């Protein structure tokens, strides 16, 4: 089956050890996690994991079910790129003298919609948000200035769907509690 990039989102209770429980689901199936980001979600006490991984749909559907089976996982969802709006942020550390000597810097920054975060005598920090091909393409252009450091975050994503499935799930659970 064809491999493609999938985005898995996982919403969990704020309990110790969930990252391990989620990551071993991938490890056991020899799946490489491409990127991972974890942060508190908009709902108090609920954490959100966003994971990207190359695989096929059948495998990823299994992975999502296995993740959801963990006790402290609330919900897990599987998306392809067309179903979400997503971003990454990249930082580039470039030597200042090299940039100053080059007249094209302004044009590069403008064209890539990048930002300069800090300038010192020794280095400049440039920030670029976008998809990985966009941060990659800025990287390629800055290469000639001798990039000292380059780092890219994991993906963050929100769904395009008008339905908010997590909220619906939490409401259902609230009803379940009230029935007890």
């Amino acid at each position, binding site marked *: 089956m064809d491999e493609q990039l999938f985005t898995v989102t996982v919403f*969990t*209770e704020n309990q*110790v*050890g969930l990252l*391990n*429980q989620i990551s*071993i689901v991938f490890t*056991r199936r020899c799946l490489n996690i491409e990127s991972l980001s974890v942060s508190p979600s908009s709902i108090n006490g609920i954490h959100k994991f966003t994971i990207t991984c190359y695989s096929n749909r059948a495998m990823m*559907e*299994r992975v999502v*079910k*296995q993740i*959801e*089976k963990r*006790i*402290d*996982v*609330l919900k897990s969802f599987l998306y392809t790129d067309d179903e979400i709006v997503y971003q990454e942020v990249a930082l580039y550390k470039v030597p200042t003298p090299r940039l100053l000597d080059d007249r094209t810097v302004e044009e590069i920054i403008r064209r890539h919609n990048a930002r300069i975060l800090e300038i010192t005598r020794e280095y400049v920090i440039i920030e670029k948000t976008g998809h990985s091909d966009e941060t990659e393409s800025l990287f390629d252009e800055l290469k000639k200035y001798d990039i000292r450091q380059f780092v890219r975050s994991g993906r963050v994503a929100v769904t395009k769907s008008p339905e908010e499935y997590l909220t619906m799930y*939490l409401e259902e*659970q609230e009803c*379940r*509690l009230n029935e*007890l």
Partner: protein
Amino acid sequence: MKELISGSDALIQSLILEGTDMVFGYPGGSIMPVYDRLFDYQDRLKHILVRHEQGATHAAQGYARVTGRTGVVIVTSGPAATNVITGLSDALMDSTPMVVVTGQVATPFLGFDAFQETDVVGITQPITKWSYQIRRAEDVAWAVARAFYIASTGRPGPVVLDITKDAQVGMTEFDYKPCNYIRSYNPRPDIKESDLLKAAELINRAERPMILSGHGVMISGAEAELAELAEKSDIPVATTLLGLSTIPSDHPLYKGMLGMHGNIGPNVNTNRADLIIAIGMRFDDRITGNVKTYARNAKVLHIDIDSSEFGKNIPVDATIHGDARDALLKLLPLIEPRKRTRWLGMFDKPQQIESEQVIERELHPAGPKMTMGEVAAKVSEATGHRAIVVTDVGQNQMLSARYSRYSEPRSIVTSGGLGTMGFGLPAAIGAKMGRPDRTVCFFTGDGGLQMTIQELGTIMEYGTAVKIILLNNNFLGNVRQWQALFFKGRFSQTPLVNPDFVAIAGAYGIPAENVETRDQLDGAIGRMLGHDGPYLINVNIDETDMVFPMTPAGGNVDFVMLNQTEIYPVD
């Protein structure tokens, strides 16, 4: 102000409040405060001192499987915690409710490689339903309540509570509240009306449906509803290994066991059926063989409490997500009465061929040495088919499962998913302790028995009346069988040089006898079952005897070997 009690006290009181009457365990450094408190609760909480921590877990599994209650284990940290890994993994595979309490070094020592410290939560997360470290006495009651709720509900499984020494000695108020709700975990999902309608339509329309009854039927106590569904719609029932005894062996609609060494009828007819109704089972590869050709003419209706099983191994056409008994109770009114005489007749020929060419040879072998099947059949007969059958793993497991007959539910205790050699002896101890009113017959091999043979000490100490039938061929028989069939008869490391098992049993004060020849067998079985207490018979088994029929691993489910040279003729 409320009275303060120690974390250890809170632990024991919580266990008692959860209905625990028996724990299997072994003391050690990091659990000593708990054992000290246990001393004062001996009248309310019986502690069974096993001889190795692995034995504690299998005993708890045996107890849980025959009673349906949660098995409880208490051990110390480090090596004790690593010794319970096999039992945890086994319990997860076979959906067995178990709570394992492991001691842990005090919180300030965590992460410093303290004496007998091991990362128990880290190690056990992949093989438990939930694994949690208790670091404060005040968390004990909450964690125990949650542990029992998680272990025993939904698809049952093992839970680990790793309790640090400071949590054991710390003082806390104690106010126990059982857990009945976890926001992120719904163990009893509401069954969808639309799923029921679709399932009923599939069943009512099917010409050749077959029910596959698994362990889930036993766990949910759906045996009566299973029989009702089968009878109402005249559907043949096959069981998985762990589903044995979910329907009596003499029920006219019971057509046998599925799987690699199952009966020919249900295996071959899997590919003739037009509807597979799988209830509380998970399409293990030992059942399906080649998944590409499995049930190729059938739609699949899967009823299970664990939705992650839907479509995991076999594509499904319809599902009912829920407890098996709930599902069947709601499904039954929608099922139209039917007669399926012709379809049921299609089980006659395979049954007859298996009877003549496999079973007859196993029950009445030509040679002077005995076969495992004939021994199991005789033991079963002598118990009136009413015993709990506990097995180890290997040929002894397959043949005792096949040749025993079952008349009541919860009559089989065996390691199915993990296939743990050494499971049997401690599991039989737990089974007998859980159901002292029933006869427990434990079938084992000379290999598996020696993996946990130290538990004979537990039998000695408690006088546990386990009937041990040692099917001794002085070989690792199942591996030998594969070597004979698939590795050109090169018996690499399978012959066993064995001790005098009767003498060993004798050393533990367990009456035992050798059964060298067939004419000694009936008498020995009679003495074993007639004796009021544990008993061992060491039966001289023909090492060339193999388990048949056999659908080789990964092969098609209707490719069945009758013996080393003959294949079942599929028309």
